[in-house]
């Protein structure tokens, strides 16, 4: 999760050299990426375990996936290759959408982080209640 997010947010470059570069103005964005990656890495496997092993509902896993997707989508640089493809294909409406994602990157990522924390909390509670040693 961390590597794709870094590539999408243009912190990690592969061409012409493998370079990780964080501009001073983007420090908050970088910290949020780390946080979302960390939480996603914890929450998604926990919920996969819940669904597969405990045969429980998929609500929480969908919540964690949604949180991860919001966190990944926010801050996609509208001037990056994905933004360029979308804008070239769909025109000004797509431009407005990608601009929204860029402009509200921090609130969206904070919301994503909040959602992941909520899912983490409820998953912990759920697993500790639902796991019974026979």
């Amino acid at each position, binding site marked *: 999760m961390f590597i794709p997010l870094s590539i999408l947010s243009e912190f990690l470059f592969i061409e012409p*050299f493998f370079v990780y570069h964080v501009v001073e103005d983007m420090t908050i964005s970088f910290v949020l990426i780390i946080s979302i990656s960390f939480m996603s890495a914890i929450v998604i496997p926990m919920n996969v375990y819940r669904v597969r092993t405990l045969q429980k509902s998929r609500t929480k896993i969908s919540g964690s996936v949604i949180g991860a997707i919001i966190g990944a989508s926010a801050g996609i*640089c509208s001037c990056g290759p994905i*933004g360029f493809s979308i804008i070239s294909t769909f025109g000004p409406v797509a431009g407005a959408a990608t*601009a929204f994602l860029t402009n509200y990157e921090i609130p969206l990522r904070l919301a994503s982080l909040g959602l992941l924390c909520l899912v983490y909390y409820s998953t912990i509670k759920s697993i500790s209640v639902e796991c019974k040693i026979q």
Partner: protein
Amino acid sequence: MSKRIIVSAAFVGIVIVVVILFTSLQASWVSSNEYAMERLIASQQPPVNLENGSPALGSESAPVTIVEFGDYQCEACYHWFHNTRSTLIDNYIDTGKAKLVFIDLPFLGRDSPKAAQASYCAEDQGKYWEYHAILYTFQNGPPDSGWADRDRLNSFAFSLDMDIDEFNDCMDSSKYKIRVKANYDEAVKNGAQSTPTFIIISQDGMTKQFSGAQPYSVFAATIEPML
């Protein structure tokens, strides 16, 4: 079952690490034979058409040309302008080792081509690079938020002591609309799919292309072998 998942995940992780390492090592292994081959290939390919681009920043006789494809409403271009460009100018452009040419790739919004046209209207009055700098200095907000609307473009011209009547005539007549479109087409033709995209051209026609607001070290590592 869980063991299988762990083994699969480990395999995928190893593959990703190997691919990343291979890619970075391959890029830095510029052997003399590869360099010679690249020179041979480059000499057979036409360079980027710069005739509709900006006036060159730096000496016309500089051996290396740095071509930047950019959009004035692009946030990444803003970051590159403020974090990398000045060091590049100090170490390569002012020393006569390289020159910089800006070619518009205005795709982010309806104000992007207008800002590009305004820069060429400023060029008519000998203030292209000053206007270029002011656009990236006062970039404020997402594309088409109004920071680069017609009134603001006029105010930038006013702040540079430009002839406003001449500037307005230029903008109203859309004098440089075709030029900006030609630049856009040239950028797309050269494979630019994001902004900023850079093409570094050596004196013998060898080119190196990459995109993103990359740090100064990347430019130095790319330009030095070309000198």
